[in-house]
């Protein structure tokens, strides 16, 4: 509760600050707000407070809130040098990101489907705008419109699902729904299509196949900073929402929805990994990689254990840190070379050892190489599904992971093994902070994940 309020107030303040042309104050203000929110997250740890039966700030919610806020913080740090001096929309930019963040906090802590719906929509609407915020950029326009049209379309399915679930159980409250499922042996047949439609709606939000089509185009077209936000924080929140619903309220019907979920998982892995292989642009490759990671994260739902939430958390954390590094470097490279092709990374390591190293760590983490957080995440996911001996699924995932090595290593190959024009990036201090912090987090989680595992 405090968290949402803090974030909203920060958003308002930033908006007003923008109005009064206090451009210098924007970033500090935002950071302070976010730190305060983070403080609230810590303060209410283990509180498990219910807010009007609408939100439940349990540890799951707090952990994901914390992760989202931390991710947003890092992304805000990347705004240094990002905007040109004449830009007037900076305050709105910040405000909308903060609004989206508020929406996400709702998504990770909702207890009632209305909160889920509103949270999702606050986030989505903000993102539609953010995707198109470069008004004169054709790609940005296209991304925005595509995202918007498809998003609205999928919202329809989500709502239809909610309606059916409501029709079957007579409530929007998660506990009530779960109770209903447990009490009634024969659930109303309306419930089943309802669950499936909600699965579809949420799969769209996290970019799982075959509802992933928006992802690559939107990620590519959006301003890189927004893509970073979308592919990391937004995705994390989407997963938390997914998990809250399916591993909570819908858990009693696990046997029913696990089969379609498996199909979605496999398709997602396949499409994400295989398509990423042939990309020329680093940014678009990252989009496909985000699809494939969605596939891995869905493993947590294939077999529900008490650790599912924690596992997704680690995975999402690992993925967030790694992606932020990747995108941060992408921004730097694009600023310098004007292109986001793999070729522009050629020979980058010579002049920018630190940047190259952190990007390498990020790629290794994304690929799931041991001693990075990404490995621990993947390991937990595999372990999770192996509890029911889903060996074939894991074998399939392994094959996909192998494909993954190819494209993640492409950028490493470009940076270290190819000769390029020897671009020297100008890396501002804040970027360095983000890169180092994320890389250190990635390695620390990779080597000693106990720090996080003991939290949840």
């Amino acid at each position, binding site marked *: 509760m405090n968290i949402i309020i803090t974030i909203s107030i920060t958003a308002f303040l930033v908006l007003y600050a923008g109005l009064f042309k206090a451009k210098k104050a924007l970033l500090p203000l935002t950071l302070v707000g976010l730190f305060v929110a983070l403080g609230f997250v810590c303060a209410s740890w283990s509180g498990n407070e219910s807010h009007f039966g609408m939100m439940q700030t349990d540890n799951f919610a707090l952990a994901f809130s914390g992760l989202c806020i931390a991710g947003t913080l890092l992304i805000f740090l990347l705004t240094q040098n990002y905007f040109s001096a004449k830009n007037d929309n900076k305050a709105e930019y910040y405000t909308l990101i903060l609004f989206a963040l508020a929406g996400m906090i709702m998504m990770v802590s909702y207890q009632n489907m*209305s909160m889920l719906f509103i949270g999702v929509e606050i986030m989505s609407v903000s993102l539609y705008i953010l995707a198109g915020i470069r008004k004169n950029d054709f790609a940005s326009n296209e991304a925005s419109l595509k995202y918007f049209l498809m998003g609205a379309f999928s919202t*329809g399915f989500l709502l239809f699902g909610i309606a059916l679930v409501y*029709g079957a159980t007579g409530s929007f409250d998660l506990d009530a729904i779960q109770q209903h499922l447990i009490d009634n042996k024969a659930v109303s047949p309306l419930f089943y299509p309802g669950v499936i439609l909600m699965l579809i709606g949420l799969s769209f939000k996290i970019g799982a196949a075959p509802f992933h089509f928006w992802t690559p185009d939107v990620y590519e077209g959006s301003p890189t900073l927004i893509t970073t936000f979308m592919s990391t924080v937004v995705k994390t929140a989407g997963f938390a929402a997914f998990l809250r619903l399916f591993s909570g309220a819908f858990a009693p019907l696990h046997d029913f929805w696990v089969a379609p979920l498996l199909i979605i998982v496999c398709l997602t892995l396949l499409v994400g990994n295989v398509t990423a292989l042939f990309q020329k642009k680093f940014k678009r490759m990252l989009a496909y990689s985000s699809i494939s990671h969605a596939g891995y994260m869905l493993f947590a739902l294939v077999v529900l254990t008490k650790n599912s939430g924690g596992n997704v958390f680690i995975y999402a954390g690992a993925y967030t840190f790694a992606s932020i590094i990747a995108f941060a470097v992408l921004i730097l490279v694009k600023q310098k070379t004007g292109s986001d092709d793999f070729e522009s990374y050629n020979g980058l390591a010579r002049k920018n050892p630190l940047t190259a190293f952190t990007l390498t760590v990020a790629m290794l983490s994304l690929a799931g190489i041991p001693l990075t957080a990404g490995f621990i995440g993947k390991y937990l996911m595999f372990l999770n599904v192996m509890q029911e001996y889903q060996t074939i699924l894991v074998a399939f995932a392994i094959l996909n992971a192998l494909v993954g090595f190819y494209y993640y290593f492409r950028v490493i190959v470009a940076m270290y093994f190819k000769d390029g024009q020897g671009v020297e990036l100008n890396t501002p201090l804040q970027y360095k902070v983000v890169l180092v912090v994320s890389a250190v987090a990635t390695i620390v989680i990779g080597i000693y994940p106990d720090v996080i595992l003991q939290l949840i």
Partner: protein
Amino acid sequence: MENLTQQLQGVPLNHYIWLCAIIFTIGVVGVLTRRNAIVIFMSVELMLNAVNLLLTAFSVHSNDPSGQVFVFFIMALAAAEVAVGLSIIVMVYRNTKSIDINVLNRLKW
């Protein structure tokens, strides 16, 4: 009025569900067949309205006002979405002089 509604309470819930499903599907087909972004958007509105009606019917059926409250939220969303959506369309139109979605295919592969 009261009398009328009382009389009409005999419609089976099934038929509401079917109606909503049909309208919803028409919305989906609209999205599929049209190329004009605004018309597509209107089809989406059609889908949302189908959901609204369904929620209301369920709400009446289970005698629970929360369903209707939810409809209210959906309307709020619809308003917000329309505002944003139309401004996006306007923005796109400014740049491309078209709102044909088939023109939007620079981002691919």
